[in-house]
């Protein structure tokens, strides 16, 4: 906060420059409105911070302006909102949380030659279209599955515990399937056997006991879970109720296990649940400061998704600084060559994009729900608390 206000003295004199519009497409209404609204707030806070710090210096202190688009959770609506924002003069887009919506928005951005920075959307397929204007900060599904298996093996080694057999429980559809397939492939290379894979439906799912018992019937050491919020809470509760003799529950790209609502929502079932996911860097002072101010301003905790929206706006701002131009094509080239040190997420290094537009250094870290809080526990360099593994009383 201090650093930013200190710079803002110069902002007033530079404010004469033009405003540059950035379009944000998120589900602001419908079932995902909670997270969509939070992400929009994250992007808005980034714009505010950048403007307060003097806007885009390379463009005479030009101010940024965030224009909202509401995808309503639907791919068609998201696409028409993206087209509207572009025609209203947005030089870049951020979005969109859902993979199917992102696919449509990305195709609209590509056709209009407007760069888009994906904040959250996991599906590998989005970037496999050969798009030139689309960039993604977070790791994709298959790299999360792969990193999840590597991390699980490394974690077992560090803790001195043998993880030999795992059962995989995932949500039906492209997301769950691609993460679990990538996990299974890498797990075999690491000497971990996936003894059972159980998928559950994405709709009309209100009790996970049968599926969890099915997964447990192969007698695994660890239950690995991939899915969204409500279903993963059900899975954790079912594991708690069945009380199996396992080392722990390990989420990969789980929508629940590292969410700050999870410990209170799942109660005892949340105890020591592990989650490998991309995550805001709780050890970074800059991200701590942003989270504090976010909570003060919007009255709710800033989850990782909103931090990614914040980061996406920073990527665009860095592109504008480097290109010194609000022309979308020059901006695209600048983003493609940018390198953002000190990312707000717990990544392997600076944010840099490869030729397909994926962030080269995107990776996952392990969180654990301990005493009602989500702590970062692995690897050591990002740890805010000590890893508890085995995570269950044996």
């Amino acid at each position, binding site marked *: 906060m201090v650093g930013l206000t200190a710079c803002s003295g110069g902002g007033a004199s530079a404010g004469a420059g033009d405003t540059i519009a950035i379009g944000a497409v998120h589900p602001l*209404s*419908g*079932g*995902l*409105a*909670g*997270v*969509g*609204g*939070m992400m929009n707030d994250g992007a808005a806070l980034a714009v505010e911070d950048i403007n307060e710090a003097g806007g885009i210096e390379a463009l005479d202190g030009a101010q940024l302006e965030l224009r909202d688009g509401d995808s309503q959770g639907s791919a068609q609506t998201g696409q028409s909102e993206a087209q509207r924002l572009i025609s209203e003069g947005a030089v870049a887009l951020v979005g969109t949380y859902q993979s199917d919506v992102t696919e449509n928005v990305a195709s609209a951005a590509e056709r209009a030659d407007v760069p888009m920075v994906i904040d959250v959307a996991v599906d590998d397929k989005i970037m496999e279209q050969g798009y030139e204007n689309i960039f993604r900060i977070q790791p994709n599904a298959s790299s999360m599955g792969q990193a999840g298996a590597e991390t699980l093996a490394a974690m077992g080694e560090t803790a001195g515990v043998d993880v030999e057999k795992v059962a995989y429980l995932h949500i*039906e559809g492209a997301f769950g399937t691609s993460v679990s397939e990538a996990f299974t492939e890498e797990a075999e290379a690491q000497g971990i056997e996936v003894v059972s894979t*159980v*998928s*559950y*439906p*994405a*709709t*009309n*799912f*209100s*009790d996970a*006991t*049968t*599926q969890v*018992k*099915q997964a447990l*019937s192969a007698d695994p050491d660890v239950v690995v879970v991939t899915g969204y*919020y*409500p279903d993963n*809470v059900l899975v954790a*509760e079912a594991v708690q*109720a*069945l009380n199996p003799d396992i080392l722990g529950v390990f989420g990969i790209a789980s929508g629940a296990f590292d969410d700050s*609502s999870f410990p*209170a*929502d799942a*109660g*005892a079932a949340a105890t020591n649940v592990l989650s490998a996911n991309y995550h805001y860097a709780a050890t970074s002072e800059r991200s701590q400061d942003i989270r504090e101010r976010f909570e003060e301003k919007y009255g*709710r905790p800033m989850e990782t998704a909103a931090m990614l929206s914040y980061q996406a706006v920073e990527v665009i701002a860095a592109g504008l600084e480097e290109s010194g131009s609000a022309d979308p094509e020059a901006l695209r080239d600048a983003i493609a060559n940018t390198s953002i040190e000190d990312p707000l997420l717990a990544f392997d290094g600076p944010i840099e994009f490869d030729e397909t537009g994926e962030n080269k250094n995107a990776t996952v870290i392990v969180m654990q729900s301990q005493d009602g809080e989500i702590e970062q526990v692995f690897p050591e360099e990002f740890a805010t608390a000590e890893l508890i593994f085995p995570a269950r009383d044996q």
Partner: protein
Amino acid sequence: MNRGVRVTQTSTETKEAPAAPPRLLDNRQLRIAAGLVVVVGAAVALMYLFGGQPSGLLTQSLITGVLLGGVYALVSLGLTLIFGVLGIVNFAQGAMLTMSMYIVFFLATEWGLNLYLAAALTVPVMFGFGWLVQSTVLNRVMGDSTHERPLLVTLGLSLLIINVLLMVFGGRPVSVASPVEGSINVIGALVDVPRLIAFGGALAVAVALTLILRKTTLGLAIRAVAANDVGASLVGVNVKRIYAMTFGVGATCVAVAGGLMVSFTSLVPSAGEQFTTLAFVIVVLGGLGSIPGALVGGLFIGLVQTVGSLYLPGSGSLLLVFGIFLLVLFLRPQGLFGAKS
């Protein structure tokens, strides 16, 4: 106008009601119920013998299925009444369920009430809400032949409820802890206590509704209106008032459902929506307006979905549910407990 409600013996029963004490199920319904028990029992026995699944897993899935069926039945009971008597396709059923869960959440967290006390207080609130919706809005759009206008109104109502909840409570998941957490062990399978209570609630609501319909003057009036609203008004029944009461009673069922389900639900404004479609399936499967039909239908669908998931992963079990639904409609278009029109 007959709206397809189960009123087979209405004519005889209204004449002879004082003489013969009405039973909860008549002979025909008992035969259907017994037939279903035999079919399900045989299917279960076959699965234990030749199903190729560990018996512990099968037992667990049966018990989970019955408990899930209890939840489905709870949601469907109010719907079958509204659908059967008023002929209104109530798309707001899921949203009203969410609404009552949020009322329970509010009472439990803001006022610090016990969950089940909060649920009990929600019942009169939702009755008032249902009564108000029917008497001020729906009664005005109920024409002689069209179902579309009330249907569109309830669709609008559901959007309104969901978005008001979103505005007031935000979209982040919230939860209410149950005072009776934990689970008990029944023949090697786990029974979650809050779900068991919800199951008991479904049975209690079904019995209470049946008693109201069979034994009270209000119930008599509701059945009369359902059978023939013009005739009922000719003999002095205030049809619009009965409509409002019926919608209120339907909303009450939803309030009970919400109160009993909230402790095992991650509460977001769209939480109740997933039950709407299945509730319609259950109501049509059981027979429009049939209370035992909704109960048996709910249990049946819960069982099929849960046990089916052992054999068909993912949404395969839902395919099975809809497949059986179509089969039943093919064999008995009026539903399991429905009256032949």
